[in-house]
């Protein structure tokens, strides 16, 4: 019986020739990540360990991105805790305001993670790096702390679901629509404890930014990780962003999958997840008349340059609806600058949107765009749970940047075709 892509990476990092689903292993880690919310808890936990120094100061990333720029005194204290620890331990990849961006956009951009590596992060969306053909998964602060000191983590080897992607998405259909469609199909626990492995000739029609978005939301189906094979586009991305050497893994031909789904990308339509679960999906066309108060375009899911280009293409020469609050958040400083250079920021501001410095902010109801009771947002973020972005009586509709931008213009849930685009 062969191994899946994920199983091969785990076996290699556990020093084993072969692993099977359900086996408990200890794997070496190539990257260990925390942010300003989970970092302080991890730093407090590692105080309990006899060994006090980190396993490798180059293989740890501390990224204060959630409540930064510091939203209040308590958050400022958390950031201070992370900063002081990073300096005391000589951690190379600590990112201060001015360098910092949303962690899951920042780390691939900085070339800190490449194909074939293993990564744990005290943030559930750490699964994003599966887009590069790495094994990466979210953990809690204690696991992160242990990994930061020992360089190892225990895993139960997951079984996998295979998603065969075929065809080419239509215009205005992106990675977000693909993953929302999949979560709608299998449910928020449809991949619980398992890997989601994406294969098929349709992948060549998905940009790296599309793949990051898809892998990012694997956790929203309960998955341990989501992973893509390495193709020319992946290699091009890694060569552009990283000096690290990488390893390509492919699943064995006789690898066993719990289930296989085939998805024709050309058949997908702009999709939206209704409150209060990412599995409550409909196409925008069948959504009906939903008035919207706020639009958020950004986050680790959809704050990359291509997302901003799509949003700007929709907003170009138009204006957001009267009373609409449209918040655009480039995920990193590099993306922000690129958006300035390409004139996208000009387009956003002329259209009546605001452009914020990189932060997770509104996605988790932290700051920079909290919802009042009864308000509705179309958001390119990843969760629409009760109270996620503010009041428990507010509502979040998850969608792509194209749908979010179109909705900002009309003031109701819309897609670019509603604007004649």
């Amino acid at each position: 019986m062969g191994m899946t892509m994920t199983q091969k990476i785990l076996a290699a990092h556990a020093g084993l020739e072969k692993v099977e689903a359900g086996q408990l292993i200890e794997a070496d880690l190539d990257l260990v990540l925390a942010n300003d919310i989970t970092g302080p808890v991890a730093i407090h936990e590692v105080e309990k360990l006899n060994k006090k120094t980190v396993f490798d100061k180059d293989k740890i990333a501390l990224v204060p991105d959630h409540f930064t720029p510091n939203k209040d005194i308590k958050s400022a204290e958390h950031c201070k805790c992370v900063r002081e620890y990073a300096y005391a331990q000589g951690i190379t990849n600590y990112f201060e305001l001015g360098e910092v961006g949303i962690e899951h956009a920042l780390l691939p951009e900085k070339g800190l993670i490449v194909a074939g590596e293993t990564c744990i992060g005290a943030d559930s969306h750490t699964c994003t790096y599966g887009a590069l053909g790495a094994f990466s998964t979210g953990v809690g602060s204690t696991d992160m702390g242990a990994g930061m000191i020992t360089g190892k983590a225990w895993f139960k080897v997951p079984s996998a679901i295979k998603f065969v992607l075929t065809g080419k998405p239509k215009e205005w259909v992106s990675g977000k629509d693909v993953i929302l469609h999949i979560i709608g199909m299998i449910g928020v626990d449809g991949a619980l404890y398992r890997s989601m492995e994406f294969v098929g000739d349709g992948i060549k029609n998905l940009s790296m930014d599309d793949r990051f978005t898809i892998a990012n939301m694997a956790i929203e189906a309960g998955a341990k990780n989501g992973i893509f094979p390495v193709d020319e586009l992946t290699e091009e991305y890694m060569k552009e962003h990283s000096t690290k050497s990488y390893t390509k893994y492919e699943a064995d031909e006789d690898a066993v999958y719990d289930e296989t789904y085939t998805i024709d990308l050309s058949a997908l339509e702009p999709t939206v997840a209704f409150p209060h679960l990412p599995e409550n999906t409909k196409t925008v066309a069948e959504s009906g008349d939903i008035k919207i108060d706020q639009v958020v375009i950004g986050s680790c899911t959809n704050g990359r340059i291509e997302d901003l280009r799509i949003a700007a293409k929709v907003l170009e020469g138009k204006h957001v609806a009267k009373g609409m609050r449209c918040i655009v958040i480039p995920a990193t400083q590099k993306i922000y600058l690129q958006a300035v250079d390409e004139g996208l920021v000009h387009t956003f501001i002329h259209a009546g949107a605001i452009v914020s410095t990189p932060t997770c902010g509104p996605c988790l109801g932290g700051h920079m765009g909290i919802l009042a009771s009864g308000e509705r947002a179309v958001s390119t973020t990843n969760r629409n749970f009760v109270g996620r972005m503010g009041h428990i009586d507010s509502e979040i509709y998850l969608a792509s940047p194209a749908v979010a931008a179109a909705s900002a213009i009309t003031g109701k849930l819309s897609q670019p075709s509603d604007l004649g685009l």
Partner: protein
Amino acid sequence: MKANGTVFKYGDNVDTDVIIPARYLNSSDGNELAKYCMEDIDKDFAKKVQKGDIIVANKNFGCGSSREHAPLAIKCAGVSCVIAETFARIFYRNAINIGLPIIECPEAAKGIEAGDNVEVDFDSGMIYNKTKGTQFQGQAFPPFMQNIIKSGGLMNYINAKEEE
């Protein structure tokens, strides 16, 4: 080791945003977090919960964010055990790592109602519904995880292993 208490019952997909909303994550103090535990799904939970009480839920308990603040808030609120049909995987690891006892048992999740008095025997994995006079066999942890729990959490386990 045993737990005994009154049950608070919830449905499917109880996410970590409702267990402890992000607006409180500017604190990492368990006792502070416990004051707001379950606030967005059960407003009076923190007032009503007594030391030893038990949470019972259906599938995918603890889905969403990786925040360890969620099991920590539940533990510090005084909850002695969480029983669910299934747990989200990060919550499952976090609960073991911080020493919050959890048991997967679909039958118990179905056969226990809010307000029932329930006893859990962690050694055998048996769950007794004393109110209804029924019992359920929960899934015991694999030995590796039992060792983490017996050591008093992941950090102590790592220290002990190092000394071996």
